[in-house]
């Protein structure tokens, strides 16, 4: 054994990590977020830019700046994006679904936001963040606005699928996939807000994230069908758990 060890070539010497390398590595893993105001007059375009490119500006305005204007813009962006994405989903079946799907999607998201907001406030405080219900509302709205923008960006792709498949199961799978991508972005933005606001214990926030995902999935079940032809009534008459519903949709 010892002889084998002696025969092995010595490992090549690695260059010492320079100070510059270390700084780059730190910058790559933990990009600095600048908390700064958005400018003199905030337009809708400024808010969209801030959502996508400068979350620090958005956080600053929501926490200590012109929170009302920004909140109004975030609401408009979310509503329009949800309606457009819902309309594209409605194109899969056409008919009544052209107006029912966007309305249901918007209603589902609004209800989800309203019923999870109190728990976001309480769980954020338990996570060590000095939170108020208003700040929690701003944080949630920013997350939902990003989620909605990602869904809006996926509309062309979604439209291609609505026109190229007749299978409800396949369309359901792709919609779920789009939803997972969008909600991941939205929730990561909420996590970023929380981190900047002084997050200490993240387990409570993780519990809330799970609750939010489950609530949105249950809403898609309670307001079904979002995909596929409309049933006799606007809302379903039979009550169902989301796991059961999605298993049925994906099996079709």
């Amino acid at each position, binding site marked *: 054994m010892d002889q084998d060890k002696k025969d092995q070539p010595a490992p090549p010497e690695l260059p010492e990590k320079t100070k510059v390398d270390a700084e780059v590595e730190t910058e790559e893993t933990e990009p600095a977020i600048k908390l700064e105001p958005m400018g003199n007059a905030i337009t809708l375009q400024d808010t969209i830019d801030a959502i996508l490119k400068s979350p620090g500006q958005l956080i600053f305005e929501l926490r200590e700046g012109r929170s009302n204007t920004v909140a109004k813009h975030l609401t408009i962006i979310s509503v329009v994006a949800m309606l457009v994405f819902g309309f594209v989903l409605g194109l899969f079946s056409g008919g009544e679904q052209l107006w029912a799907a966007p309305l249901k999607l918007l209603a589902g998201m609004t209800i989800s936001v309203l019923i999870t907001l109190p728990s976001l406030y*309480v769980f954020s405080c338990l996570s060590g963040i000095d939170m108020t219900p208003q700040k929690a509302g701003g944080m949630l709205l920013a997350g939902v606005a990003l989620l909605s923008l990602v869904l809006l960006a996926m509309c062309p792709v979604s439209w291609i699928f609505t026109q190229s498949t007749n299978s409800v199961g396949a369309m359901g799978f792709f919609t779920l996939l789009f939803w997972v991508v969008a909600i991941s972005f939205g929730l990561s933005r909420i996590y970023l807000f929380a981190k900047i606001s002084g997050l200490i214990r993240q387990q409570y926030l993780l519990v809330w994230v799970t609750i939010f995902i489950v609530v949105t999935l249950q809403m898609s079940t309670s307001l079904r069908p979002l995909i596929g032809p409309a049933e006799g009534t606007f809302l379903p008459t039979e009550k169902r758990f989301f796991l059961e519903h999605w298993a049925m949709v994906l099996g079709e």
Partner: protein
Amino acid sequence: MRLSLNSACATWTDLLLGGENSAIPWTTHLQVRALGFCLLSIAAGVGAYGFSMGLWNGPTMAFYLAVKLPLIIVITLSANALINGVLAQLLGSRLSFPQTWFAILSSFTIFALVVGALSPITIAMALEVPASDSEQAGETHRRLLVFHTLIIGLGGFAATCRLLGLFEHFCPNRKSAIRCVAGLLAGNLFVGAQISFLMRPILCQPGLPVEFLRPDMFTGNFYESVIWALKHSF
């Protein structure tokens, strides 16, 4: 006592963050105002959660539970006040009997805030699951039991963590704080389980009548029922 929603929110936030400006000074110098605040918070938070629990059995049961759940907490606290005070002093805290009682009350306020914040979700859930007179009622009842147990467990966990933080402030070291909280928790669980048993039905089983209290409420106890269930399970 004049209490605005903004100041109430600020106090709740402080309590949830650790109680540096609320639970700790309240426990140090007992205040009637703080007592009223905690009791009101428990009535609102646990009441809303109780309402959502009972809603599956209909509005009557929802109102019964909105009253019964906060009552269970207050009765448990009162019944245990003496033993909690003794245990806390024996296990190393420097708190008096009323101070111990108040520390536990503030932790129950945290519990109320957690379950109260989740009550909009549980209300929506009660309205969305198959009804208590449907064919799937039995299965839904079991699912709801698991779900509510998880929520109550989560609220209890958060409240216990904050109670530990509070006792760490008043105990000479962390070890005695853990001993105190473990002792108080055991006492509260022991008595709380029996009080809940007396105040049944909580989540009314499908087929059983909806009523505020069972006519045979003093027949048997929680622990006899557990032993009976264990005997008949194996």
